[in-house]
């Protein structure tokens, strides 16, 4: 778990962000940084990898955000026996017409939650990541465009590694951000329990089941896809200065020359850091990026893109420590 590496969002600075935050806050307690990361991913079209232990509202946050902006949402639980066609779709022979028809998989959505992505076989991971990159899916002889916006939020459990297929660096690189969840504070956890106690029963005919937080997600959203598109346009107008660009490029270059790093960042890291910083600046109501954006996002952009040397690992060095050292050396 990492520390909170981002300043609390500024209320009133960005109406779009305030609306989403308010909607998510009805069901999710805390985790404002994660909500911000999801919004950054949505605004920049980058994909997001979330890491955290089970039970810290990963799915709930993503579903709440999708409801807040009226996005289509699908969730796929990745398992070892999952096939690429289970995600992408397949051609099915319609016995009434004796013709093949296309059955679209859950990837045809705006927001796809790939739960425990490292549990699926590399073949499935590869199919998903290819679709993420190209935003197109080939089923049979036909290529289908994925809906816009399209965003994959994948989750990984960092604890249970048995029976998993670790994503290789080349595929991790396709995720713009990797964010590690932190546990809620004691105060937040009290509020979570209090809200859970307030949930009532859900009647189904004569039977009833206790409601969960998912049942509590409010459907009526004030935002729509066009609002998201407008916000994305606004992000495009956020100014990135030459000084800021220098900081981003310098950071990426330093990861390539650091003696403790075997594999440094690819050019995608510089792109991701710049684009994500622009979205963060927009969410904080600024028309230009500043070093705070750079430092807030550096960890999420860089850490999954570097691999330490054997010697550094033997010395018990951690990627976060090496990154902190690089950031200090920037000044």
């Amino acid at each position: 778990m990492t520390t909170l590496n981002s300043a609390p969002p500024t209320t009133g600075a960005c109406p779009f962000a305030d609306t989403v935050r308010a909607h998510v806050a009805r069901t999710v307690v805390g985790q404002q940084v994660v909500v911000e990361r999801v919004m950054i991913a949505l605004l920049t079209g980058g994909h997001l990898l979330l890491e955290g232990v089970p039970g810290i509202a990963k799915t709930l946050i993503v579903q709440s955000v999708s409801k807040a902006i009226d996005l289509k949402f699908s969730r796929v639980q990745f398992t070892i026996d999952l096939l690429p066609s289970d995600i992408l779709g397949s051609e099915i022979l319609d016995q009434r017409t004796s013709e093949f028809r296309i059955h679209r998989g859950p990837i045809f959505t705006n927001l796809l939650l790939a739960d425990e992505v490292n549990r699926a076989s590399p073949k499935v991971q590869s199919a998903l990541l290819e679709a993420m990159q190209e935003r197109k899916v080939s089923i049979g002889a036909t290529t289908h465009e994925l809906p816009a916006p399209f965003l994959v939020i994948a989750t990984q459990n960092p604890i249970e590694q048995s029976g998993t297929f670790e994503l290789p660096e080349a595929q991790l690189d396709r995720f713009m951000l990797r964010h590690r969840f932190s546990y809620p504070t004691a105060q937040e956890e009290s509020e979570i329990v209090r809200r859970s106690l307030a949930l009532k029963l859900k009647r189904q005919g004569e039977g009833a089941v206790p409601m969960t937080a998912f049942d509590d997600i409010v459907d009526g959203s004030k935002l729509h896809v066009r609002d998201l598109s407008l916000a994305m346009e606004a992000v495009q107008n956020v100014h990135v200065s030459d000084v800021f660009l220098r900081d981003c490029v310098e950071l990426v270059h330093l990861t390539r020359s650091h003696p403790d790093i075997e594999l440094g960042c690819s050019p995608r890291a510089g792109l991701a850091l710049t684009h994500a910083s622009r979205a963060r600046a927009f969410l904080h109501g600024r028309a230009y990026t500043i070093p705070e954006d750079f430092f807030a996002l550096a960890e999420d952009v860089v850490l999954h893109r570097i691999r330490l040397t054997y010697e550094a690992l033997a010395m018990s060095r951690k990627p976060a420590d090496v990154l902190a050292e690089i950031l200090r050396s920037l000044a």
Partner: protein
Amino acid sequence: MRVRHTQRSVLLATCVTACLCTFTALAVAQSPPTHTTARGITGTLTLNHTGQTLRASLDQSLTAPLLVRVTDLTPSAPDTSEHRYRIDYIGAVAGTFDLRTLIVHHDGTSALELAPLEVQIASELPANFGTDLFGTPPAPNLVMSYYRLVLALIALLWIAIPIVLFVRRHLRKPPAPEPPPAKPSLTLADQLRPLIQAAMQRDLSIEDQARLELLLLAFWSERRALAHLAPALAIAQLRTDSEASPLLLAVEEWLHARGHSEPRPARDLMKLLEPYAAHAPIAVAQVARLAQAAPPAQVAR
């Protein structure tokens, strides 16, 4: 007459030769053959014997002057009772020894009825040097005589030399710090003024603008003891700090906002630098590097 004389001479010569040969043969037969072997080296002697089988005496001591053993026993020829014995011996003391004393019949009875089996154990050491292996005086070579002491000295040096080098290296005085390029009487505000001016007017390179901004952030982060926080959190706090934020936000705007900001009047700059007037100069080397990058006319006070 002449022929008779010649025959007599030949006969005489033949008789003399025969006598000499017989005498020599007798002499050789009477004196037993002596085998000579160096001390500590195994010598071998072959003996043909008919009769009861021979063997080495069983009660030989390892510290005895001579050790004997019968190493091989083969028939001398087919259809004969004669056997050929191969006897190995090794002497520890120089001298002449009769192997019969250490050879017995198979039933353990003495074999002294055999012809003498004398062997000579020779020593290459000078006369009167002594032939006892264990009583040998130490060799004149000092290294070989005191090898334990030599080895101990080498081991001591092996340990001591690195320790001495290590201690010397750590006791060596650190190099004298470079004299500060800035005058000690300067305040932080004096240091920053030309740099800020240069940044405002875009006279600093992109690299130096970035360094100046990060330097200011690092200064305030240290001044406010925010180093334990994540950098983003520290910056967020500094942006709301009443003392730090005016200049930080101004520099932020000059460096990052779209388009060129209008140069601020000098009085504004003086006001921005007021909080820095009370502070001593910082990060001398870094500021000096930036100051070198700024145009000389503006660096001068």
